[in-house]
């Protein structure tokens, strides 16, 4: 295979595989946050803040994969 083809494939695989884990994680975080909200509706404000923080941490793993993909693509 050519180098250029391999580069394209590597870019797609890096972000494609890297998005699986964070996708599952964000789903779990959102689901558990809703569960907690159903059990304790008064705590909506703090649950939302913690959920967004948690989702941002899970998302950052996808962002690492994205950085790798962009480095492969543009260098």
């Amino acid at each position, binding site marked *: 295979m050519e180098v250029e083809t391999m580069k394209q494939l590597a870019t797609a695989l890096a972000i494609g595989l890297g998005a699986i884990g964070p996708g599952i994680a964000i789903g779990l975080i959102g689901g558990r946050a809703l569960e907690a909200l159903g059990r304790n509706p008064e705590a909506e404000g703090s649950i939302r*803040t913690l959920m*967004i*923080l948690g989702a*941002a*941490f899970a*998302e*950052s793993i996808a*962002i*690492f994969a*994205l*950085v790798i993909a*962009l*480095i492969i693509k*543009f*260098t």
Partner: protein
Amino acid sequence: MAAEVLKDVVTETNQEVHAETAAQAEVHAGPHISIKGEEVFEVAGIHVTNSVITTSLVVILFIFIAKYYYDQSRKTDRGLGFYAINTAVKGIYDLFESVLHKKINIFFPLLGAFFFFILLNNWSGLIPGVGTLLLKSVHDGVEHTVPLFRGGTADLNTTLALALVSVIATQIYGLRMIGLKSHVGKYLNFSSPISAFMGILEVVQEFSRILSFSFRLYGNIFAGEVLLSIIPFLLPMLLSFVSTPMYFMEVFVGGVQALVFSMLTAVFISMAISEHH
């Protein structure tokens, strides 16, 4: 004679090939994307990149906002701008207070500075004109176009510096708050083989924090800029319908990342200043 004709033919085909590649390059000329800040000019051997220019402007803006806030806070009749800034400062203060409790006043200068500096830097990359104003610059004898501005935190150097400040400040606060013995005891603990191994893991964790801090912020902001510049090439027809929500999502992401950075610093400081865990 024959050789000359052949030469002509060869040069002609060469020219054709060149023209073709140039046309192809024009067709496939996507957005201008560079993973690092590019040098705009050079002063006394110091390479001034476009992200340095934007960061300097943001710092000047930050100084003016802080001066305005300070002047207004000493008056009796205050402007509307004061209350807008005060709401943000108070919200951040309350959030950090829930993590650090009574010691908030020692750490708030650092954490608040982190938050507002990162916030303004993240949003500086979203101002129209940042990244699109191009400048011709000659580098190594080759002329190319370089954006005049680039979001400050879309450069790994900025975020790495912020991460180093965060991690080193955490260490210094830990040393000052709980003393040398118990602070170093977290890393060097030979009471049992397991705690000795845990100490090594703690040391590794400190270094991995630098990496994760810097890459998280840089990746989020840089990926946002790439996203915003690539979307017009994917959907040129529905540009405003697609890129406007994306723009507001990037505004949101910039705020969340500033919050995450300063919040994580607050959590790590509160872990470092607690005696035992």
